[in-house]
């Protein structure tokens, strides 16, 4: 087993490729993105798939670093052969080294707030993207019917665009401007 530490941070990277999404959501996103492109909107994708193994590492390193989890009792994760508990030269648990290693991971990840363990991103059912356009936007909904979006804002927070996205099965979560998913979560 490999001891915890910042070396883990490079593993299981987050991706921004639509190809990493799960079907049928992937096809729905591709259709919606095509409609946006055809309408002249500018789209910048931030995140699609956040591997569950990465999320596991982020979550538990944060908990250990902040003293809210017992490193000896962190559940195992398939495919993540990590040793959370560091030991001293005598082979005894070294809480200080354990916490310091977890804190190194937290710093390397750039974590400030407690990471959640699961989300639509870990399931490949969410995409974070910035959408913008100039002037009015006329975009086809999933049935091919053109929808004119005239009002402000001219970005992904436009309510009319949310309706269009929903026809494709790409649903807006309004509390988080970049986030769209299979069910709005």
């Amino acid at each position: 087993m490999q001891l915890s530490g910042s070396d883990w941070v490079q593993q299981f990277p987050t991706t921004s490729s639509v190809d990493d999404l799960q079907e049928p959501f992937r096809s729905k996103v591709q259709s919606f993105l095509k409609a946006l492109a055809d309408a002249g909107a500018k789209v910048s994708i931030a995140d699609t798939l956040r591997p569950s193994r990465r999320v596991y590492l982020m979550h538990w390193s944060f908990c250990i670093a902040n003293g809210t989890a017992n490193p000896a009792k962190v559940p195992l994760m398939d495919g993540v052969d990590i040793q959370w508990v560091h030991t001293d030269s005598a082979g005894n648990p070294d809480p200080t080294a354990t916490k310091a290693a977890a804190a190194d991971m937290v710093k390397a990840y750039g974590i400030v707030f407690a990471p959640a363990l699961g989300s639509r991103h870990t399931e490949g059912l969410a995409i974070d993207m910035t959408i913008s356009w100039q002037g009015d936007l006329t975009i086809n909904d999933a049935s091919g019917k053109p929808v004119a979006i005239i009002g402000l804002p001219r970005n992904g927070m436009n309510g009319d665009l949310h309706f269009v996205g929903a026809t494709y099965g790409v649903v807006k979560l309004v509390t988080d401007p970049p986030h769209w998913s299979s069910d709005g979560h």
Partner: protein
Amino acid sequence: MGLSAQHHAVEGPISEKKTGNSLFLRVKERTIANCWDKMEIPVDIPTQDCNTSSGPRAVIGHDDFRSGIIRLTPQLLFVFFVPLLFTLHGRGRTHIFDYESNIGLATEQSGTVCLAINNDELATGHRIALVVFTTPQSIAQTDVLRRLPSSCQSTDASNANFAYYELRVVEGTLAPSAPAVAVVDPAQPLKVLGRFVVGDLEGDRHPEYFRECTSKEGVHLSVWTGKPLRGKRRWHRYYYLGYDVERNCTSKETKNSGPLKALQQEVAYATEWIRLGAAVPNDVKRR
């Protein structure tokens, strides 16, 4: 003692704690109070003749009307014009603070402090206070180092009006990767009271508070006149984190517009969901 102080910081009116405020504000407050006292003086209006609920309809002649107006004129002047004069006078003395252009969002990435703000007139050396959301909240003082040619934050593409600046921290510290609220030219310097940073940004003796909360994968920062969640929200911005977090925001903190408009949007959103034959997401139901 600490808990008591914290509680007081939230519950107690800031004006009671302040000392050394301008003479004008004290005079204005007292005068307005006097106005209200005066307004409670009953105005002698002959309502009996105007009663339409019984008997023949009363007819008021020009003379009656004119004499009534003449009789009422002093009271009318006092009731309508004196408060108006004081209001205008007060406006002239109140610090001009525009929430859209005087508040921005600052972050530190790889040792560089970046400010995104809807204000392109900040000169090099301009002092800017940052509200840092540590526990307790703290204040960092910064100076504008230089204007940046392009965006230095990841999630501000939704507002093309932002200007970007690099800041130099001259006092206090920022938490790396955590957003801070930048305040430009408040009427009164920001202060730490208990666990919270408080400021009278407009100089109207109404305290402003600062708050952050997390939604699904971002931070909502807000400024409130009065207690957060109970007072009036004056400014709001979202900061994208790029990872999923534990949520603790309320709908008051995450909405993007006024209460009525937000409610209309939510109703329209839920209605559309039903029309599409989908289950209304829990988030929408809750809001």
